[in-house]
């Protein structure tokens, strides 16, 4: 049985009178790079803050690494959280940031950290505030990885980075994933970058989970149907259409179906990409009502037992 790196049950967080996250139930299995995707304000950071123990839930609960309460010593020991905009002590040299992190944790692989910073060309003597945005993100990632975590949680790690730094950062995450088997849950609103790295997708919208599951399963269970626009309405009633795009002559329906179902006569079925799929759901916040993995509280069912 595989363990869950994050498990939320009816989790909610309210700031004043506004729910930033509401009735969120999900189980993210270990061994994945899981992408938490959603528009700004969807509750991504709130969910990750709750999982990291930085915030206390207003409703429900969240555990990490197989049942450790978020924020407990046991949880903090196993999770490396890299907060949005990678906060570092700007006046401390990289060397002192390493020393600081080593002192604050049970495990710290000093050699790994120094070698990694060397490879990245980040001088140990340079103050964190004097590093470029990409270097700061890499330093924060190095600090997190040198803790030898079982779960790495970067919140919007690439939002502030240029395309090259963004690519390098994601490559680093993938390398760590491959080398150490660390599980990753990262949030991002940069969809293009995720296609390459993520093999698990969690879609958040307006504070609720809209879709969750392994990318392969999600892609296998969705098709893009292209056919005459005039017939679109007719099929829209019979099929689980997530999102429909109609042109003058042709209509494109993103439907939930399996590849075994034959396309209707006169229609062509194409496989969908992750970005296409995510965009379709993001454009239709109500689409979570569809049967399948995205059904509110029952997300656990989508967990794939290995």
């Amino acid at each position, binding site marked *: 049985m595989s363990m869950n790196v994050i498990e939320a049950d009816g989790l909610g967080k309210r700031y004043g009178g506004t729910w930033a996250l509401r009735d969120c139930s999900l189980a993210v299995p270990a061994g994945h790079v899981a992408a938490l995707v959603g528009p700004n304000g969807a509750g991504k950071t709130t969910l990750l803050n709750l999982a*990291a123990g930085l915030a206390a839930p207003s409703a429900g609960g969240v555990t990490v690494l197989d049942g450790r309460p978020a924020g407990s*010593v046991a949880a903090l020991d196993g999770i490396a959280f890299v907060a949005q905009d990678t906060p570092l002590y700007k006046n401390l040299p990289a060397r002192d940031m390493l020393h600081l992190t080593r002192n604050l944790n049970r*495990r710290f692989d000093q050699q790994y950290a120094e070698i990694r910073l060397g490879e990245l060309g980040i001088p140990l003597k340079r103050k964190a505030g004097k590093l470029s945005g990409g270097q700061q993100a890499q330093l924060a990632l190095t600090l997190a990885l040198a803790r030898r975590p079982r779960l790495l949680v970067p919140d919007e790690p690439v939002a502030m980075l240029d395309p090259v730094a963004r690519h390098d950062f994601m490559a680093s995450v993938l390398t760590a994933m491959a080398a150490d088997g660390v599980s990753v849950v990262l949030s991002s609103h940069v969809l293009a970058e995720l296609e390459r790295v993520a093999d698990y997708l969690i879609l958040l919208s307006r504070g609720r989970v809209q879709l969750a599951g392994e990318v392969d399963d999600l892609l296998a269970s969705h098709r893009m149907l292209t056919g005459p626009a005039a017939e679109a309405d007719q099929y829209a009633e019979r099929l689980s259409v997530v999102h429909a795009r109609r042109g003058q002559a042709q209509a494109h329906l993103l439907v939930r179906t399996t590849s075994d179902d034959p396309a209707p006569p006169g229609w062509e079925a194409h496989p969908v990409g992750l970005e296409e799929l995510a965009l379709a759901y993001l454009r239709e916040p109500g689409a979570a009502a569809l049967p399948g993995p995205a059904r509110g509280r029952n997300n656990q069912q989508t967990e794939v037992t290995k």
Partner: protein
Amino acid sequence: MTAMTVPADPKEDTSLRSVPWQRMGWVTWRQHRASLAGVAVFLGALAVALWLAGRQLHSAHTAAIAACHPASSLACPGMVIAFDGTNGFLANGFILQAVPVLIGAFAGAPVLARELETGTFRYAWTQGFGRWRWTLAKLVPLGVVLAAAAGAFSLLLNWYYQPYFDAGNQAVSLTELTPFSPGLFDLRGIGFAAWTLAAFAIGALAGMLIRRVVPAIVATLAAYVALAFAAGGWLRPAYMTPAVTSNLNVPGSAWILSQWWTKGGKFAFAGWPSQSLLNRFCPTGPPGPVGPGGKPKAVSLAGCLTPHGYTQWTSYQPASRFWSFQWIEGGWLLALSALLIAATVWLVRRRAA
């Protein structure tokens, strides 16, 4: 569990122990050494200035005492004026009252406010050490170090103010102050260290509540001033039941709280007599309203009123109670500081980001 999901040795989790406390020592030192150095420079510069000023004051005092034997000597009045005029702006101690709160506000308020303002708390509080332990491991050593520095500095203050408390002063009409003088009481003894610690604890809590450095410093200054006035005005006079005497020669070192008069066993009036009473019994005019040191010239007023059956009563705190008062004030300030630090740690622990 599958092997690929478990990078760390599974044995590690079964014996999960917290990161040892002493590891925070370096962290606290590295992050706060600049502010500690600032405090050291501030106190060091003040100490040098105070030492130079103190040498002047001490030699002026020695000269005045020597010149005033006998008190009628011609040189005496000049020397007395010279002593009273030496660093007169320091004599009431009010300027130095600012030292504990400056240390406390500038060292205490940023500890949490800076983390919250710059967002680095999201780094610090998600490390394995744990955030409430992190907070405690910062506040307690910093508070102790600052209080110790303030305590050492107060030894110098104690030396500086010695001449004003010399029992020989009254005989040669030099200013003799009571150790309870509002500006001086907490510069000496353990009060100075205790107030510094309290200011630090107020600053830490303000930083946690306000989350921004500059407003937290301002709030600390305001809260401290309010507390200091409340302590000096209401609490301190009531630490112990005042002594009451009808003796007219209350020593100059005593802290006179109130004076009133009785006639035939009944209360007559408090404080200063009415004008009509003065006209009846002191037709030559009332004695000067105040004598040196700001105390009413009770003796001369008594000279008019006592022959007519009036008795003067004085409630006061004798100077011998100085150390009892110091321990009482130090004690509640220490308790208050501990409470404020505990409240700060509790807030950090339950804080919703």
